[in-house]
């Protein structure tokens, strides 16, 4: 498909008796796509199957229009993969390592070395490029993994948990790099993460995985739905019966880390103030005080929670 970078068609992958992907069919559009899901949802397995590391028991995988099973080398020559775990070639400094990866990807030696210098500057390791990779900090190791994935100028990047272990400043810089690659440099990418803000900041589309299956997928803006139908609510009093009452009234209620509930009201909007009145009526019936009630922009967290059925 010309408008999709990756296509999975009824793909199943199992490690022994443990099914990691269950009959997955999904298309990843071009651009930046987030691959979301809790730990063990099958995100990394999907990337590894696309790289040809794990053969599927059934189904067909296509990357950039190429069948992974039939043309794995051509697929990988156009891919860049940033693995989740630390990985480097022992005994090399950063620039030698990245140039070596460039050569392995088919670049001539001189070009690979030139590209290595360029991408190391791009990812912010220009000053540290002659240091041994073993001596790098966690954040620097994340950057060099991105550099080795970029050195051969791939058409599509697979980024597996790229901000793992990074400090807040480093994390912001890494997300800026990813966003820049996708939106300014024309590199399609799939960002696998369990961190919703990372995906929301860098990606336009999302595929949400849960228990080895696709829970939902689409453009983030569309999945979030219209604004004004999600409310932040904080109450004083027993919350459990209140949540139960809201749920019984057809609303979806998700608790957040900040003691604020997010209440999603499905269906068409009524008259102005109707939704707020319904919430207050349920609070009154349950004997709780509403201390805070305001419109909320639906976030990816809501989409995720709805998709994987968290409450």
């Amino acid at each position: 498909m010309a408008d999709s970078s990756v296509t999975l068609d009824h793909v199943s992958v199992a490690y022994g008796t443990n099914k990691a992907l269950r009959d997955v069919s999904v298309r990843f559009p071009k651009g930046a796509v987030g691959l979301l899901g809790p730990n063990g949802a099958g995100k990394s397995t999907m990337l590894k199957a696309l790289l040809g590391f794990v053969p599927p028991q059934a189904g067909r995988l296509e990357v950039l229009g190429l069948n992974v099973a039939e043309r794995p080398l051509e697929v990988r020559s156009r891919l860049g993969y940033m693995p989740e775990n630390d990985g480097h070639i022992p005994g090399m400094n950063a620039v030698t390592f990245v140039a070596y990866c460039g050569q392995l990807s088919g670049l001539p030696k001189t070009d690979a070395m030139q590209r290595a210098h360029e991408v190391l500057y791009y990812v912010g390791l220009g000053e540290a490029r002659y240091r041994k990779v073993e001596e790098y900090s966690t954040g620097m190791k994340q950057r060099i993994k991105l550099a080795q994935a970029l050195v051969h100028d791939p058409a599509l990047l697979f980024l597996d948990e790229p901000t793992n272990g990074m400090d807040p400043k480093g994390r912001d810089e890494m997300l800026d790099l990813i966003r820049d690659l996708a939106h300014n440099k024309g590199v399609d990418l799939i960002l696998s993460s369990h961190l919703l803000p990372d995906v929301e900041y860098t990606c336009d589309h999302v595929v949400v995985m849960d228990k080895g299956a696709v829970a939902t997928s689409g453009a983030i803006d569309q999945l979030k739905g219209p604004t004004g139908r999600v409310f932040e609510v904080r109450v004083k009093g027993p919350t459990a019966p209140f949540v139960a009452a809201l749920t019984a009234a057809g609303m979806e209620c998700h608790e957040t880390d900040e003691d604020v509930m997010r209440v999603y009201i499905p269906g068409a909007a009524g008259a102005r103030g109707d939704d707020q009145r319904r919430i207050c009526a349920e609070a009154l019936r349950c004997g709780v005080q509403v201390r805070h009630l305001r419109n909320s922009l639906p976030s990816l967290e809501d989409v995720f929670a709805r998709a994987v059925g968290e409450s």
Partner: protein
Amino acid sequence: MSPIHDQSYRHYEGGRRPLGSAWSVIARTGIRLSLSRRWFLVLLAVSWIPFIASTIHIYVMTMYPQMNQILPVDAHRFMQFIEQQGIWVFFVSIFAGAGLIANDRRANALQIYLSKPLLRMEYIGGKFAILATFLSFVTLVPAVLLLLMQILIAGNLDFMRANPFIVPAVVLACVVRILIAAATMLALSSLSKSTRFVAILFAGTVFFTEAIYLVLVFVTGSTRVAWVSTGANLEIVTDFMFRQPPRYETPVIVSVLVLLGLLAVSLSVLERRVRGVEIVA
């Protein structure tokens, strides 16, 4: 907001090598990295001392033919030279080979390698080429050079005419040793993340099989059981190649089959262990 390092990323518009040649990149880089270790260069240099000694021996025997009765230059002498180099095959295999895959496994490098456009066999081939190059340097190259030295010192081809099998025997005996040592070491290297443990395993493979053989000889009183020893199998095959009287009662075909089996097991281990993901059942 754009990142501050934006000035340097450009798309690549240059040429690319055809697919299927990544093994040579692995081999070249691995050889260069090994040669950057000074003590390894010393080991390679020391491994040529027997060559110098053998060259002096050939010179003396050619200049003073009457001494040929004591230490003759014949096919057996060349066979002995190749077998003497076995000690350097052992050390070079350990120092250059133990870490070839083990280090990559420890540093999670396999997922980096195999995410590039190269097949697992290319990765294994590249690593094999590194070790085979160094093993050739301590066996095949000095053995062939020694033959050339014999011709140069003698100033004629009489020795070659008298022993027409000598060139293929020298080449084959060396190639068999290189193949067995490199394949076994690579297989063992893929089994662990510790270079030291791999070195111990390799030494164990060599010495343990020899010890078992000696025990069996003591028990049975026969050398028919020589097939259990890797070293003895190599000697049996080498005797056959150099048309020397056999030192063991084990038939050559049995030793050939054992060595082929060892190669097959090594390849099978490599096929299972060299993967982009490690699946723990």
